[in-house]
């Protein structure tokens, strides 16, 4: 199992969610974050105080998936989150040792997205 962490543009979130839905990925957790990448800075002025805002609003998705779902999930994100301009974000894949569903106590495969219909 893997924990897939993706940072995307907030305005792309709904499209990403839709793409994941179509890829039959169900469970996920999202967080509002602020990111710094290669992008340019924005200047804001409040009275005499001028600031450079080096951080941009982003949304982070965390998705725990069973191995067969790793590629479809990454593919869905890549296709839906891309604009081609700096700031589109990144995907990180982290090993995941164990997953437990709190409601039932079920573990691992039983607790994450079901294996694909007719799949491995």
């Amino acid at each position, binding site marked *: 199992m893997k924990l897939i962490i993706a940072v995307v543009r907030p*305005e792309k979130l*709904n499209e990403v969610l839709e793409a994941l839905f179509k890829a039959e990925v169900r469970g996920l957790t999202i967080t509002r974050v*602020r990111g*710094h990448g290669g992008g340019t800075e*924005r*200047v*804001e*002025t*409040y009275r005499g*105080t*001028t*600031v*450079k*805002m*080096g*951080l941009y609003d982003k949304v982070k998705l965390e998705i725990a998936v069973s191995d067969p779902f790793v590629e479809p999930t990454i593919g869905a994100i890549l296709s839906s989150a891309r604009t081609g301009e700096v700031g589109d974000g990144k995907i990180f894949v982290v090993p995941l040792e164990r997953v437990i569903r709190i409601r039932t106590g079920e573990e691992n495969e039983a607790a994450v997205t079901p294996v694909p219909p007719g799949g491995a």
Partner: protein
Amino acid sequence: MKKLVWSTMPLVLGLALAGGNIDAGSTAWMLVSTALVLLMTPALAFFYGGLVGQKNVLNTMMMSFIALGFVGVAWALLGYSLAYDNGGAFLGGLGYVGLAGFLREGQMLVSDGLPSILDVAFQGTFAIITVALISGSLAGRMRFSAWLLLSVLWVLFVYAPLAHWVWGGGFLKGALDFAGGTVVHINAAVAGLVAALVLGPRKAFGRVAFLPHNVPFVLLGAGLLWFGWFGFNAGSAYQADASAGLAFVNTFLAPAATMVVWTLLDLGREGKATAVGAATAVVVGLVAITPAAGFVGPTGALWIGALAAFPSYFFILARPRLGLDDSLDVVGSHGLAGTLGAILTGVFASQDWGGVTGGLEGNWAQVAVQFKAVAVAVFYSALGTFVLLKLIGLLMPLRTADREEAIGLDAALHGEEAYPSMEGAILVLDSEGGAA
């Protein structure tokens, strides 16, 4: 009732001087009314600002707020004279241009017991909020400098003439418009509609859900608008008299009735009484009673308020599905309720209460007069707004760049965020020597 005051004012002008015949009670009421109507513009900024998303809060609020400056100054220097100086059927004179004409023989002019100069401010607050109202159709996509230019030109060339026709002794003076159903609300809504069509919808319109970012701000706006509207309507009596009392009570009753009907419609449709709905209902009821405030009795006010809920409720429900990005529903709230109110003023006007007979008392001709004024206002406002936008469009783009729209207009146009975070904000000191 402005027209009554002002059609007789020219006679009074030369005679009434300061010190002599100030009516302190009525002056007190008009001072308060002016302050109340001024407050409506910040109130509208909150009503509108709460309804937009987090990225466009300040831009939306500023489109209203800034009218207090630019429209206020333009009005004082020129607009007031065009609207209210004794002129022809189509435009006022230039006697008050540059705030001249309010002194006679070293004394301040007094008319109808009031210091005449106060009327510049009282009427100015009406002009300001009318412009501010338009901005509700344009949230999230207009360049701010184009808006500044539009607001100044519009108040001089669309608002001032229409005010003259209805209230300044112009050719629509037979129409009943106690406090501005036609001059303010229909006018603003038509301008908003035309501008929304000329600018086109926001890029994400129809794909993304535009949600309010702060519903309590919407309620704050509605509450303060209602409070200020007492000055708007009952102040339009220009005296602290029975007519003001009636206009006040009607301004209390009509929105209450609208809120009841609206909430029952909400509950009937899906069992949920929405707060945004209740706030909208207050505004709809206030708009509807505005032209009628001093002309109809209190049961007439209840009827007008209750009836006004229906067209606005269903139009606002359907509007996003019509592909029309009248972002904050100026047409649905001010246009429909303003029109309905203007017509129903002709229906419910009462000899005993307001001194004019309406349809229900047999004088259906008044309804026709009302229709005519509405039609003229719709036509002139649409035409004027369209021409002004096309002219401004020759000088500068009307719309923001797509990228600015995506980032949000607060950061892009104003260099600010509504709720800045200090995280990751790096202080810039251009002269590094100064700060410790």
